[in-house]
């Protein structure tokens, strides 16, 4: 059975279901469960649902130590930039312990944070910093783009025996979609074809999936059939699904909300240059944020971040290119 649910609620549902299923799952973060009336606190008790001080290093580091010794912590970090305060723990502690110990210890934890908040949060609260994390061996990075994925990827992240950075997009929080009621786990590292098409492959994550799907609708009216793929996790990165798609379409557009030089798109472009070049009939194109910080004013913000129009125009320009080896 499935029912309509908001993206944000789907995440909360996954956490509650996993906490119900596994007593080793604990949840803590700042400004969380502040009163006795908190439903999670009521349900799971104050041992497993805790309020934390503004101490990102300790919050994340405590999760590492707790995970090494048998718990499965979820740390609510609220905004991905707050992780920068604790980057040693996230980059250089959590994903290293299993490896450095020669496989003896495991670090099953979830660092949960929102990102990409394009609603006037300006320079320090709107960014996309997943590129910095997707290349760290041992760390997994999940970015759901739909309510169903939000639930399935959270359940998988909690069950995974590795540290997972779970990044939910703030602009999708209120989006509704069908979400399976019962246990629903999406394996990490498997891309999803969000729309099938034959002329061009668009790869996007998070909010950009929604923008790309809207662009694909518009392009369909022009007779251009776009396939939209969401990798869903950037680490592990499912390049095979992208290669399979461009075998069919021969064209690739990468849409990414991050600045061009710190985008996942740049990494995917490199992989396709090596593993998919022979299938391409036109050069790969990237639609990313400009290499600028996110400005406060709406006109400025819109200019920096990719939108439906930029995607449509980019697709048209790729379609207009002559075949590479015509």
């Amino acid at each position, binding site marked *: 059975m499935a029912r309509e649910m908001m993206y944000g609620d789907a995440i909360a549902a996954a956490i509650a279901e996993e906490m119900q299923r596994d007593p*080793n799952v*604990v949840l803590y973060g700042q400004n969380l469960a502040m009163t006795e009336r908190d439903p999670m606190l009521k349900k799971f008790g104050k*041992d*497993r649902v*805790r309020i*934390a*001080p503004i*101490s990102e*290093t*300790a*919050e*994340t*580091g*405590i*999760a*590492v*130590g*707790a*995970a*090494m*010794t*048998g*718990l499965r*912590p979820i740390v609510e970090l609220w905004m991905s930039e707050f992780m920068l305060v604790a980057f*040693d*723990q996230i980059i*250089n*502690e959590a994903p290293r*312990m*299993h*490896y*450095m*110990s*020669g*496989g*003896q*210890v*495991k*670090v*099953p934890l979830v660092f949960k944070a929102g990102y990409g908040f394009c609603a006037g949060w300006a320079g320090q609260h709107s960014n996309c910093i997943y590129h910095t994390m997707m290349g760290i*061996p*041992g760390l*997994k990075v999940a970015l759901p783009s739909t309510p169903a994925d939000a639930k399935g990827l959270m359940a998988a992240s909690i069950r995974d*025996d*590795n540290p997972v950075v779970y990044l939910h997009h703030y602009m999708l929080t209120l989006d509704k979609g069908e979400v399976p009621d019962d246990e629903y786990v999406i394996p990490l590292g498997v891309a999803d074809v969000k729309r099938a098409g034959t002329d061009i492959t668009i790869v996007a994550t998070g909010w950009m999936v929604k923008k790309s799907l809207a662009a694909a609708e518009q392009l369909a009216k022009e007779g251009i059939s776009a396939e939209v793929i969401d990798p869903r996790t950037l680490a592990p990165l499912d390049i095979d699904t992208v290669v399979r798609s461009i075998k069919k379409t021969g064209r690739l557009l990468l849409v990414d909300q991050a600045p061009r030089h710190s985008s996942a798109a740049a990494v995917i472009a490199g992989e396709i240059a090596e593993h998919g070049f022979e299938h391409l009939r036109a050069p790969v194109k990237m639609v990313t944020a400009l290499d600028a910080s996110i400005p406060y004013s709406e006109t400025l913000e819109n200019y920096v971040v990719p939108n439906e129009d930029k995607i449509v125009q980019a697709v048209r320009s790729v379609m207009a290119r002559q075949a590479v080896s015509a």
Partner: protein
Amino acid sequence: MLNKISNERLIWIYTHMVRIREFEESVKRTFIEHPGVIRGHSHLGDGAEASIVGTLSTRNEKDLVMPSYRCHGYPIVLGTPMRAMMAEVFGRKDGLCSGFGGSMHLADPSRYFPGTSGIIGQSIAHATGAALTAQVKKTGQIVYCFFGDGASKQGAFFESLNMAAVWKLPVVYALENNQYQAYTHFRLEDANAIAGHPLSKKAEAFSIPGVTVDGTDPIAVREAVDQAAARARAGQGPSLVESKFYRLSAHGNVITVPPLPTQFPEHEAVAVYGNKKEYEEWKAKDPIPRFRAKLMSDGVLTGMDASRIEEEARNEVEDAVKFALASPFPAAEDAVRYVYA
């Protein structure tokens, strides 16, 4: 609480102190006897033996031990085979971590030693997290969190102690003040020290007990830690015990770029500050001969016992070196084995 300590336990303390010292001296000799065998950076705990063993003499069987990267001494007390430890320091296949960790990253979770961090202070948060596990799962374990004076200036220290105090976590924070943060004397960088206060004063910031103890005396350390451990076991939360001693070797081997071989320099007191007098004064307080003399004058240990303990430790370490040198290197393609669990 602590009963009167038995002679057997006193000899146990002395034996482990000697075993740690022999291991560390052997690692140090390796830089001369087998140049190039030890790569990267190794850090020795000679001088810390009384503090390490005195602290761990209060430990119950399943209590967790989580130190920093200066981590050789603790697993020796926990019973980790020296063969596997030395093979790890030498980067061999039979190493404790199969050659993936090296000197800074020993881990033996089966002996309640989950692993260490090479980044100063960060493991304080890990130990605090291990205490969270003990509390949530009601295992009855406490965690011994060891770190140096340098680490007590890290944000991880302040954030972790605050959270441990708020959550009343079962952890003992063992601040090993060996007087040098890498190369810098602690009086140059610690606000408490500059004001003439002990470093344990930091505990006041979290409203938890803080005490400073002579870290060259294992019995004094044991008594101070025992109170902290009892408090942790009783669910009353963390304590800070500053154990003041002197690191007898340099911070670590010299950082060299190949093909220059790694080697151990003189202690910073001499090499950096030209203060041979300070070094000699502390060398005279070396905890091992002092404790041996005390046990002998108390009639706990005979000269013959002492010689036997030392000889056994030497043999154990020599055997470990032979084993480690004979152990093969890991297969190169194993390098991608442990990326994901």
